[in-house]
């Protein structure tokens, strides 16, 4: 199974003969991955390296106790949901605050199928998760897309919380204890009717995830580079103008919303398979929605793979932070604040060629004494701001004199 997925991105000579192809355009050479996706050699190499690293995680995890397959896996799944959310955020400029709803719907759909209907097939569980995540996205999207801006954000959040409240209040959903997704070795979900031991199970599910993620990224790439993706960009820039040039705005935005729900539901279903237990706190709570949104921004919401990287980093931060300090929330908080003021393009965005960060790094390499100047500048700015705050406070309390 996993071979297919990696082949699609990295290119293996066995498929169709056309892959991988080298095409020459305007004198530059590009590596053709699929029809329409041609990468410059450097980026193709980077992508290949990324996929290899991605595939090698279970092996790398045996080398270092710091790196745990389960943590990376969780990060990847939340990241996948963030990739879906990023379709809205990056292109239509809509900030959804309720994507945990689709993730949670997916996870709960898998759990309900497993618990109440005794479904054993992994693929059926995933299909159910995707289906219900998509349906939920359709309903929530239909009701919240009447609005834009903050109203939209708060509506998606409210629907998410409503779902959370319903799930936590009903015994059918296991209330606050949640439901299990085929736990225990004797009972685990099957892939094509094959049973696995618990070690093998987690690795198999991981490779299934790798496959899903690679295909998901390719599909997303196709979508955002299609006329539909361009229309979404136009809507994001100016809704009124987009309507004037004949784009059916509501329908397109709803389609994008539902598509992002597909990613959320699928990721949630995989999460159910990985954790083998879903709880309302960890899948449906509004802080999860926040996490998914901030993963996209942390990784760089102007990029395709940024949300995925952000997902891995944020989950890693929360998990490793827990071991390092009891103030792991503040650690994440400091990272987010630093992100806003230092790296607004996110991790992947900052590392891209031509980004301000790369440019600064280049200047610093040329002249290391710049570091001292920048530090002094930052200190002066902080002092000035603190002084201003004090001044304002004085005026508030004692008037202008």
């Amino acid at each position, binding site marked *: 199974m996993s071979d297919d997925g990696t082949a699609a991105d990295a290119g293996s000579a066995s498929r169709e003969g056309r892959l991988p192809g080298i095409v020459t355009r305007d004198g530059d050479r590009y590596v053709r991955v699929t029809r329409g996706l041609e990468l410059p050699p450097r980026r193709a190499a980077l992508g290949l390296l990324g996929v290899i690293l991605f595939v090698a995680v279970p092996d790398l995890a045996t080398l270092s106790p710091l790196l745990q397959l389960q943590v990376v896996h969780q990060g990847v799944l939340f990241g996948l949901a963030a990739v879906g959310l990023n379709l809205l*955020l990056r292109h239509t400029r809509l*900030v959804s605050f309720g994507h945990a709803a689709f993730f949670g719907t997916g996870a709960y759909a898998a759990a309900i199928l497993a618990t109440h209907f005794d479904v054993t097939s992994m693929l059926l569980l995933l299909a159910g998760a995707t289906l219900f995540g998509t349906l939920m996205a359709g309903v929530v999207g239909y*009701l919240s897309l*009447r*609005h834009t801006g*903050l*109203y939209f*954000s*708060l*509506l998606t*959040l*409210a*629907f998410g*919380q*409503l779902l*959370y*409240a*319903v799930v*936590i*209040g*009903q015994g059918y959903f296991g209330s606050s204890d949640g439901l299990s997704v085929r736990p225990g070795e004797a009972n685990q979900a099957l892939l094509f009717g094959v049973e696995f031991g618990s070690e093998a199970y987690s690795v198999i599910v991981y490779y299934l995830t790798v496959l899903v993620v690679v295909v998901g990224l390719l599909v997303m790439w196709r979508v955002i580079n299609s006329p539909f993706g361009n229309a979404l960009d136009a809507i994001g820039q100016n809704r009124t103008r987009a309507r004037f040039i004949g784009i059916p705005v509501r329908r397109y935005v709803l389609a994008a919303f539902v598509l992002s729900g597909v990613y959320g539901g699928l990721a949630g279903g995989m999460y159910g398979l990985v954790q083998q237990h879903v709880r309302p706190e960890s899948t449906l709570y*509004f*802080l999860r929605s*926040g996490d998914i*949104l*901030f993963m996209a*921004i942390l990784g760089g*919401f102007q990029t395709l793979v940024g949300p995925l990287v952000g997902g891995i980093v944020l989950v890693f931060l929360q998990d490793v932070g827990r071991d390092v300090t*009891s*103030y792991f*929330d*503040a650690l*994440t*908080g*400091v*990272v*987010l*604040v630093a*992100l*806003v*003021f230092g790296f*607004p393009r996110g991790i992947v965005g900052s590392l891209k060629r031509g980004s301000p960060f790369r440019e600064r790094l280049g200047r610093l390499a040329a002249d290391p004494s710049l570091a001292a100047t920048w530090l002094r500048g930052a200190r002066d700015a*902080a002092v000035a*701001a*603190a002084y*201003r*705050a004090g001044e*304002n*406070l004085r*005026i*508030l309390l004692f008037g202008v004199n």
Partner: protein
Amino acid sequence: MPVDLSNLLVHTLNGVQYGFILFLIASGLTVILGILDVLNLAHGELFAFGAYVAFSVFGYVTGAIAPPSGAGGLALFLAVSLGAAVLAALAVVPLGAAIEAVFLRRLYGRDEVYQLVFTFGLLLIIKDLNKLIWGPTPVRVQSVYSGINRIPAAELVGLNFPTYKLVIIAVGAVVVAALFWFFDRTKTGRLIRATAIDREMATAIGVSTDRTFTLVFALGAFLAGFAGAIALPQSTANLAMGANPLVLSFVVIVIGGLGSLRGAFVAALLVGVLSRWAVWQYPPAELAAPFAIMILVLLVKPDGLFGTWGETA
């Protein structure tokens, strides 16, 4: 189904009290949103911070100055504890002012997602700040506070209703009146509204938007802290207490119409009373009721009950 009248009255009063708490929380959020155009996700944590400070101040002041005994002592105790709530709220003000002047100010011109990320980071940091100062276990002031409930105010009319809840209703009403008076009648309030309606014009006529914004954020923080201090005695102060008020105040401001103070007030009472009635008739609805009310209202009136901020207070 026959409805017992005094039962209905008690649940309605409960709802009104809950509504006033909701308004106290949501008012700060809606004022900041209406004027600064920033959705402050850290609002719930400021609420929690106020509650924690109140715990410390209450514990010290009420114990040291006025132990609750005798009629006069009880009255003094009440006054002292309200004073303590104000003190606790004042402690949040410099925090709010500093946040606005040092950090938030640099984000106004930028994409709104950065404001969300920043205030979310702030949420996490303040949460751990509370943990650092007061420890991870919940703190409780019930013993100090049961003093007020020993004043049998409601029993005069034959009702069995905790006095402290009546105090909350009274305090809430005073705050509502004070806020409307402030934005309607005072010069500062009008300047703030002018800034909300048209920033450039306000700057042109000599209003310092910098200071207005700091003032507004500090006011919002004060209201959050005050709500925390007032709501504290009914429960414990704990690290998770910030999340629920935050989401509930989202519900309130969405029903009321984003950034409308009047809307927030009406919506808070609506949500308070209706959700208490719902819980009374069908207890499992407790968590879902506010959201269900919100969705019902929005189906009828998609833009909330009242318009935006500024034109009317």
